């Protein structure tokens, strides 16, 4: 093991990897700091460029973008009261009052330090949890994988949006789109044109769905431009202030790791949960919301704590827990690697190199955040009316460069319109994307299981692992239906009460 780790360290410690991590962290912070731009956008926009990089460098670039954007969201949250990303929504509550009181720099410092600590703890947990989980997953066959994917999709569908029904509709759309092209036995499905025979490219679909709707929304509804940014002010974070928040940072990091490792939950929920726990248990709980450093520490440690942990199910089981890890799964596939237990068996060197690189990225996050906090404050003032059209052009060039195919550009634009329509109809995009990526594997495992069992559906219930995932899926569906039924009944009662 130690030899492999040493070899992996040598593989990571190269100039292209360090450059990719620095570029990823900086790019992520910049994109995360711009309101309306998300970590998902940052990662999907970078996807076409990973074609020209080695597998490890590509994943390190994407992970660095993810972490950078998660921290970057706190900059606009603190300085202009607009969270750059959803996971920084809690940071606004205490960050902006501090900036108004002339302590914006102090708030940013606390956000950076707690983000880095949360991130580091998350990376360590990835190292220690992913390997045992992958070893266990080696005993899993096609029927169990089918059940696992059904379970993951159910969670993502029910948590991503307001309603389980709309989440399942979104997942079905993604699964259907994934069937376009040639299937595993050479039959063509939904090949409406010659170009569609080879299926729809993953990258144009992902970028179209996540980067373009924001532009279309801006053109159609023309919202107000960015608010004015506050100044950094007092910059110094004292040791006593840090000590006062250390408990919240540690708790937030652990909450981030636990919630991040569960598919479908992710950094936003972790940040809210950690913030409310810190508020409940802190002796300064009544000051939360008025500019309390502990509030920023709790929220930022949890959202960055979830970043590394979301990689646990991805690397060990090959199941992405959220949209960003879904895009990363796409990046693995582009390079001919399939995350899951076999990755640990066949490409252990790459896995160790990733672990070490991800640990390095925490240090890069700290250095980049510390050195350029002042410069990043200007980024949040870039007007979206200039930025979003330029992003579309960047996407068009990036997509075309992958396969020199005008059809891919058409898919990109069509998916942008589809994404906008889904946004209008409140249909969540995350289940669509994860279903689109998992779709071929999902179907492949189902068809292989049925082929092995000669068409007997009982194959899906032959092992305790299958039964376990089936029970969890049913339990989750029942809990969600119960929640929705209660909501529906409350609505009905309110309706009848207002009628009388």
């Amino acid at each position, binding site marked *: 093991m130690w030899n492999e780790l040493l070899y992996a360290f040598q593989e990571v410690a190269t100039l292209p990897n360090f450059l990719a991590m620095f570029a990823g962290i900086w790019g992520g912070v910049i994109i995360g700091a711009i309101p309306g731009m998300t970590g998902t956008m940052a990662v999907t926009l970078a996807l076409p460029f990973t074609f*020209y990089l080695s597998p490890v460098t590509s994943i390190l670039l994407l992970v660095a973008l993810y972490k950078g954007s998660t921290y970057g969201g706190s900059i606009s949250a603190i300085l202009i009261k607009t969270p750059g990303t959803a996971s920084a929504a809690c940071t606004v509550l205490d960050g902006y009052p501090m900036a108004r009181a002339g302590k914006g720099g102090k708030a940013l410092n606390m956000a950076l330090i707690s983000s880095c600590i949360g991130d580091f703890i998350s990376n360590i947990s990835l190292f220690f949890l992913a390997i045992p989980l992958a070893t266990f997953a080696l005993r899993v066959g096609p029927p169990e994988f089918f059940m696992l994917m059904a379970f993951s999709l159910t969670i993502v569908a029910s948590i991503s949006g307001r*309603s389980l*029904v*709309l989440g*399942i*509709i979104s997942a*079905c*759309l993604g*699964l*259907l789109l994934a*069937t376009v092209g040639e299937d595993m*036995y*050479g*039959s*063509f*499905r*939904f*090949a409406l044109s010659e170009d569609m025979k080879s299926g729809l490219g993953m990258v144009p679909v992902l970028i179209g769905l996540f980067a373009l709707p924001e*532009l*279309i929304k801006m*053109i*159609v*509804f*023309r919202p107000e*431009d960015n608010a004015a940014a506050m100044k950094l002010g007092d910059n110094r974070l004292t040791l006593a202030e840090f000590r006062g928040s250390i408990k919240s940072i540690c708790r937030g990091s652990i909450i981030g790791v636990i919630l991040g490792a569960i598919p479908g939950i992710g950094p936003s929920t972790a940040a809210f949960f950690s913030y409310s726990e810190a508020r409940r248990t802190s002796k300064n709980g009544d000051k939360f919301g008025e500019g309390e450093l502990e509030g920023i520490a709790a929220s930022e440690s949890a959202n960055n704590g979830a970043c590394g942990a979301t990689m646990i199910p991805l690397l060990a089981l090959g199941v992405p827990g959220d949209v960003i890890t879904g895009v990363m799964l796409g990046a693995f596939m582009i390079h001919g690697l399939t995350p899951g237990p076999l990755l640990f068996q066949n490409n252990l060197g790459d896995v160790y190199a990733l672990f070490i690189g991800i640990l390095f990225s925490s240090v890069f996050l700290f250095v980049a955040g510390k050195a350029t906090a002042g410069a990043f404050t200007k980024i949040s003032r870039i*007007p979206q*009316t*200039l930025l979003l*059209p*330029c992003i*579309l*052009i960047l996407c*068009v*060039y990036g997509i*075309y*460069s992958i396969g*020199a195919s*005008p059809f891919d*550009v058409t898919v990109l*634009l069509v998916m*942008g*319109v589809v994404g906008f*329509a889904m946004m209008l*109809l*409140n*249909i969540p995009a995350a289940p669509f994307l994860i279903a689109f990526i998992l779709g071929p594997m999902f*179907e492949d495992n*189902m*068809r292989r299981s*049925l*082929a092995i*069992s*000669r*068409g007997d559906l009982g194959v899906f219930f032959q092992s305790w692992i299958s039964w376990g995932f089936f029970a969890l899926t049913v339990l989750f569906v029942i809990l969600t239906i119960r929640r929705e039924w209660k909501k*529906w009944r409350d*609505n009905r009662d*309110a*309706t009848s009460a*207002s*009628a009388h």
Partner: protein
Amino acid sequence: MNQNRDFYAGLVATVFFAVILFVLIPIYVKVPSFIPGFAPPPDMWPRVVAVIGLVMGVLALVLAFPKMREASRNQVEGFGNRILGNKTHLMRFAGILIVFAAFVYGMPLIGFVPATVLLLGVLFVMTGNFERKFWMIGLAIIFPVLLYLLFTEVTHTPFPKGKLLSANISHLTTLI
């Protein structure tokens, strides 16, 4: 306004999955005459997914009715009125569709770089914010050209030159 969205989402999903199930699958998913072993036919999975989608679409419609009743009781304006009320939004959306279609069909004719310059320029105009006119004009020209240089030098991507442009150049060469 938010209350009717579930109904429309359900309606769109029901129609979409019904078209997939009853029209597109029979035509565009061919079942081969021989399937090796006991593997399920290629139309099985799309059918299963489309049936689940259809059921969910109908369910979304059914669950939206109480909200619809409440909306009508509160004299919320109907969908038709709302569309007419948001005519500007509809026009802008239609404008985007036209611009995207023009780009897709025009790019092979006029070439990739001129098409992206035009697309960026039109998108800037469509944002409706003319406070930074010089930035807009500069970016619309410089940004696509820079990207073109970057991608041709670094990734050696062969971008389409445009049939019209190539035809004119070859015509000029013949004349010379």
